[in-house]
């Protein structure tokens, strides 16, 4: 691929896009949920989380969007279960920061998995909002769970 496309559409991203994780609905009622929407793109997603004890046990992501948004949602569904809400929030915030930093580095201590690959999207400024949408929606779901809900869909557009 050329024009930097091999950087944007890395094999890992294409694989997540082809077979997005987290598509199956949660077994029971959701403990936290939020919608994300980028009206100017038309990208939309629904995120639902199941929690047990201290940890998030499952994530359901239903995303209608481009390959980058879909892959990002899939990576989220893979990385978030098993973390506490605080750990999930820390990861989302670190990712948001990395997407706006020159080197895009994520601390190893956060165990960022395939997110490390997704930070390559920061070199395509128009697509950063696609990559961030699921993670901003995650922050919104966690706030809703804490009773700090805004009620409106999360967005990464202005």
């Amino acid at each position: 691929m050329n024009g930097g496309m091999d950087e944007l559409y890395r094999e890992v991203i294409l694989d997540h896009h082809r077979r997005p994780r987290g598509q199956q609905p949660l077994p029971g009622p959701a403990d936290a949920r939020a919608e994300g929407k980028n009206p100017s793109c038309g990208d939309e997603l629904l995120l639902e989380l199941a929690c047990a004890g201290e940890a998030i046990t499952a994530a359901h992501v239903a995303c209608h969007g481009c390959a980058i948004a879909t892959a990002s949602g899939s990576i989220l569904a893979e990385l978030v279960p098993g973390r506490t809400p605080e750990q999930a929030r820390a990861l989302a915030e670190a990712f948001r920061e990395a997407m706006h930093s020159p080197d895009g580095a994520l601390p190893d201590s956060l165990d960022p998995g395939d997110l490390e690959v997704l930070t390559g999207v920061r070199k395509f400024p128009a697509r950063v909002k696609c990559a961030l949408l699921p993670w901003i929606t995650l922050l919104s779901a966690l706030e809703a769970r804490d009773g700090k809900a805004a009620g409106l869909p999360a967005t990464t557009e202005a």
Partner: protein
Amino acid sequence: MKRAKSLAAPAGVKPCDGQAGDCTHCGPVFGERFPLLERTVNGRRLVYLDSAATTQKPGAVIAAEARYYRLHNANVHRGMHTLGVEATDLYEGCRARVGRFLGLPAEQVVVTRGATSALNLVAGGLAPTLKPGDEILITEMEHHANLVPWLELARREGLVVRHIPVTDGGELELARLPELLNGRTRVVALTHVSNVLGTINPVAEIAALARRRGALVVVDAAQSVGHLPLAFDDLDCDFLVFSAHKTYGPMGLGFLAGRAEALERLHPVETGGEMIETVTMESATWAAIPQRFEAGTPNVAAAAAFPAALDTIDEATIERLRQHEISLTAYALERLQAKGGLTIYGPRDAARRGGLVAFHDPMVHPHDMAQLLDSLGVAVRAGHHCAQPLHRRLGVVATSRASFGMYNAHDDIDALIDGIGYARSVFGA
């Protein structure tokens, strides 16, 4: 990166009219006059297929805008000095030139910032003439520019907005017209050419019905002026708007053309300098039309440059440009169809469409499509194209759109088709 000039006519595609100079077999018309097209993008020849968003500009337009600032810059209608007179002449010359292009006297041409501001001028200007319960009839295929100002007006004045639905074939459902157009309809506002479907609407036919009912007819000609033969009188409308930048002219300039009686009915929305006759500390009287609708300092540089764009169109002849766009559109429709698996929107017959084609590939999201095409130097637009209700009707949130100008050729469409193949290969489709 220059392309070969003579291209074989692809099978099954009607070439432009034979006498068409460098347009034979649909080579570009005056392609060499558009300096920007010489640049490369991502190391490739730029294949510009986004003229429906904005056309590229002939060198003569760019030079005229620069010449204005280098030689004539002054405010208009104010100075007694030489520069002020020259600037005013250029500005008023543009108004007259646009009038000639549309077949109207200069006094019936209002200079605006663009089609959007012209539509807001009409919608806002009609407010005092409307009362609660009055109806506005629009269509389901409108650009937000010809939709949101009416929704906003309706909200403020208690009006009812109805719309003519779009058929599965991408045309207006005219059978619904008798029921939608009634004694309460005050305004019918519709696009001449859809910026997504390409559909050319039977504006004159609808306008005749509407005007018989006593409604004012507003035509959004943003996608048709400079692309198809058009005279104001032929459309039988009251108002017509367009933007210079989609007509090979500069940005920040547009026009409202109107029947004299229709313009008289508009209340000025923007007030201030330039648009007054006499002002006291208590009141003001309005200047004559069209100045009444031109408060503040206009974009004189753009107005000084726009006649060069219209000259280019006239030199090529609008008939030939239209033939060229039909030929490109027919070829694009044929090749997209042949690609298979794509949804193509709008009428099948290129002669019934403007020079654009929107499509959707279920395997590749429009944003990914546009990104991957861009990596090959092919510029298309992806998104809802400022027509969200229409996309809802089409059942998708976004489409990809290729649109054509006089500088495009068949090999540009070949590049698009190759690019779609490449995008599919990236996604393993």
